[in-house]
């Protein structure tokens, strides 16, 4: 596909398709459609992305950041809908770990997402109506294939690094499996190579909450000008519990009451933890599409990298030359250390270049989004080491 001459040139153009959103939007799959794992082909579809820092002359300093289930491409700037700081603002920026003075950071809204990339809330050009549940079921590999189309479109032959936490980490694992020659360094954080029964179970609770909301209207809520906000909020509340450790919840809230001295003998949000979760749920629905939530959680549930390679996870990366660094957190019970260790064992079995650190943290799964100094030190060290091997300039003052 013929792309623009340089991404810099593209920056001067306003985003197409999503006039209201900052960043960029391109239409991909025009020459050759994207064939999804489910068999459906997607042609001429929008992909929205954001970049930070400049691409260097030989296009060797690009880092792809893969966002998690409810993240999006606005990783290092105030969110256009909520106004909140980007989810990795403390990691991306001048002089930070993902130093925008040295690296060109790309973050793509995933396939099936709801921030400009094609997903169930977008209009299906064939019908003129929102896709809704007619949108094809997607996989993590499909998300990665769409990102690869974008990277090709941007004229970037190989990425210096692909980095992501949680579902972003799953995408990193897929990148290294599908496009080993395009990934110099890979950093899956708090991730797993498959979804366990418990992971699927929690997602199913969320999906059932959405579908039980009468406003969901069989997935066709956009046509009825309704939104299943209550169902989506409950889904978010249930999921949010899995992102925190028991200890973190207990220390933050314990049995503390919300704006009262005694329980109300009713079903109001008596406890602070209830109030907190309700807040998490109600703010989430403003920025996230319920059907997107169904499709993305499904993609995660279907993720089973070993399954594609006859049950031998190592075969996913046989012959790889990518430098890997896996990170897990001690209190993460959603994707526990054991899951990262399985990946490390598989990478060792193919003699891959792999680092692995388990970071002591009581912040649970969400630790990858938080200020964890030890995590950031390892992150920085791995990236600097990889940059040196790639021949990229060193960090200032080092």
């Amino acid at each position, binding site marked *: 596909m013929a792309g623009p001459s340089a991404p810099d040139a593209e920056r001067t153009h306003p985003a197409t398709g999503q006039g209201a959103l900052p960043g960029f939007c391109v239409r991909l799959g025009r020459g050759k459609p994207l064939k999804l794992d489910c068999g459906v082909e997607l042609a001429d579809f929008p992909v929205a992305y954001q970049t930070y820092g400049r691409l260097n002359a030989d296009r060797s300093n690009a880092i792809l950041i893969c966002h998690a289930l409810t993240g999006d491409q606005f990783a290092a700037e105030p969110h256009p809908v909520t106004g909140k700081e980007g989810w990795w603002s403390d990691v991306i920026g001048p002089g930070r770990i993902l130093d925008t003075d040295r690296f060109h950071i790309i973050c793509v809204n995933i396939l099936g997402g709801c921030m400009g990339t094609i997903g169930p809330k977008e209009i299906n050009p064939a019908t003129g109506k929102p896709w809704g549940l007619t949108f094809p079921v997607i996989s993590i590999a499909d998300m990665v294939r769409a990102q690869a189309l974008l990277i090709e479109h941007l004229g970037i032959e190989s990425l210096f690094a692909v980095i992501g936490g949680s579902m972003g980490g799953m995408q990193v694992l897929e990148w290294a499996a599908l496009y080993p020659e395009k990934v110099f360094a890979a950093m899956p954080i708090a991730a797993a190579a498959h979804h366990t029964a418990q992971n699927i179970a929690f997602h199913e609770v969320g999906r059932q909450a959405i579908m039980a909301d009468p406003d969901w209207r069989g997935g066709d809520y956009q046509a009825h000008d309704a939104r299943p906000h209550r169902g989506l909020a409950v889904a978010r509340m249930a999921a949010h519990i899995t992102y925190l450790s028991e200890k973190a919840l207990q220390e933050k809230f314990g049995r503390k009451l919300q704006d009262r001295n005694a329980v109300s003998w009713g079903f109001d949000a008596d406890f602070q933890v209830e109030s907190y979760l309700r807040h998490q749920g109600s703010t989430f629905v403003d920025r996230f599409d319920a059907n997107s939530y169904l499709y993305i959680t499904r993609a995660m549930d279907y993720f089973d990298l070993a399954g594609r390679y006859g049950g031998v996870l190592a075969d996913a990366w046989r012959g790889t030359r990518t*430098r890997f*660094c896996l990170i897990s957190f001690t209190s993460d019970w959603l994707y526990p250390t054991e899951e990262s*260790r399985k990946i*490390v*064992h*598989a990478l*060792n*079995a*193919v*003699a891959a*270049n*792999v*680092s*692995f*650190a*388990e*970071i*002591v943290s009581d912040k649970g799964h969400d630790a990858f989004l938080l200020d964890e100094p*030890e995590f950031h*030190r*390892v992150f*920085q*060290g*791995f990236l*600097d*080491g*990889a940059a*040196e091997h790639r021949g990229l300039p*060193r960090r200032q003052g080092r």
Partner: protein
Amino acid sequence: MNHADAALISSQRAIRVDLQLIADMIEPRSRVLDVGCGDGALLEYLTAFKQVDGRGIELSTEGVNACISRGLSVIQGDADADLKDYPEGAFDYVILSHTLQAMGEPREVLRHMLRIGRRAIISFPNFGYWRIRLGFLFGGRMPVSDLLPHQWYDTPNIHLCSIRDFVALADELGLRVERSIALNESGAPRRIGGGFFTANLLGQQAVFLLAK
């Protein structure tokens, strides 16, 4: 000053005498796995001076994080559990410095080292050292020294051996001793002869280069 120079200077300052001996046994540009690599001093030295393709395994969180922060490729794990995953002949050298005595199954670890590596380099404190023998003979208490600083109740060193014990195990496993060096208390190296008697008495620690 570039990174390699900085590493060189810090390595020259920091590297232990047994690590220096190990480093001298390693061919440039080889593939090396350092089992129990600690804070990565040897790996960093080997990367800077011998341009090796180095990997490490380390049990302690602080060690692993220090290594990765230095840009080294190190995984958190332990030899008892993790060596079995590596394919045959993945490395030219597998190094185990002052760690053998802390392994749950040192014999299996040695076997795996020479399965996944063409050669193995092992250094360990010699329990046959005369001071240990005398100390126990006259003091009647478990030995505590610079090399074995732990009390009996909190020591990770559960499988201590003498130079002669080690040679006997290597024989049993059909491993060839290519080089063997004993170090006395001041760190002066001496070649271990055929009889092992003198080295076993005078060597405070030993370094062996083994092949199949």
